[in-house]
């Protein structure tokens, strides 16, 4: 007795309409150097208390997160950003 193969039904994925970002914000814009003087950009990566957002929260890749870290620390030294609030 031959079994008829059932057509494979692919599971319909739940789509919200918003495509998940595959790259971090700096990689998308091909930013090579994160300037410590660019305060509006760095401000977006800090909490209200002046702490750096985690990679999970900011969506940065490891390399860019490292660049952000150095930029924020330089800005803090120069008094452009707070160490803590």
């Amino acid at each position, binding site marked *: 007795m031959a079994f008829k193969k059932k057509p494979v039904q692919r599971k319909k994925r739940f789509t919200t309409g918003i495509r998940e970002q595959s790259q971090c914000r700096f990689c998308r814009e091909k930013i*090579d*150097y994160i300037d*410590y*003087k660019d*305060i*509006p950009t760095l*401000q*977006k*990566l*800090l909490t*209200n208390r002046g702490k750096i*957002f985690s990679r*999970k*929260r*900011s*969506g940065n890749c490891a390399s860019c997160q490292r660049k952000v870290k150095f930029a924020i620390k*330089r800005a*803090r*030294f*120069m*008094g*452009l*950003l*707070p*160490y803590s609030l």
Partner: protein
Amino acid sequence: MGTIGKRVYEALFLVDTAIAAADWDGTIKLIETVLSRGDAEILSIRKWDERKLAYDIDGKGRGTYILAYFRMETQKVTVVERAIRLSEKIMRVMILRTDRMTQADMDKPTPIVLAEMQPAGTEGVPAGIAPSEPAVPAAPSPN
């Protein structure tokens, strides 16, 4: 030991607003004197911004930032840094190597120029104050 030669550096100087406002030419001359200790060839020097500091430095709440680009020998950087440390008028300095910097990058408008270009009443949020709307979208819950 081989010589590395000259490199382009970027330096951001932080000086007291009162001193800078009282004697701007003297402040610029002081920075030029400090850089001349390292035989620096100054490419550009201008006011970057004048703003409230994120925290008090040397008991001062406001500061004037001066941005300078110069070409200098690598070994002379320590000489300049020592001269800056001895200067009482310069509160902080950040000297970084900027080899990839082009003339267009150096001539980019500074925040103070951008603020002057903007019409009155539409100035951006000052530094140190968080924007009203969340800049980073909230991460989805792990569940």
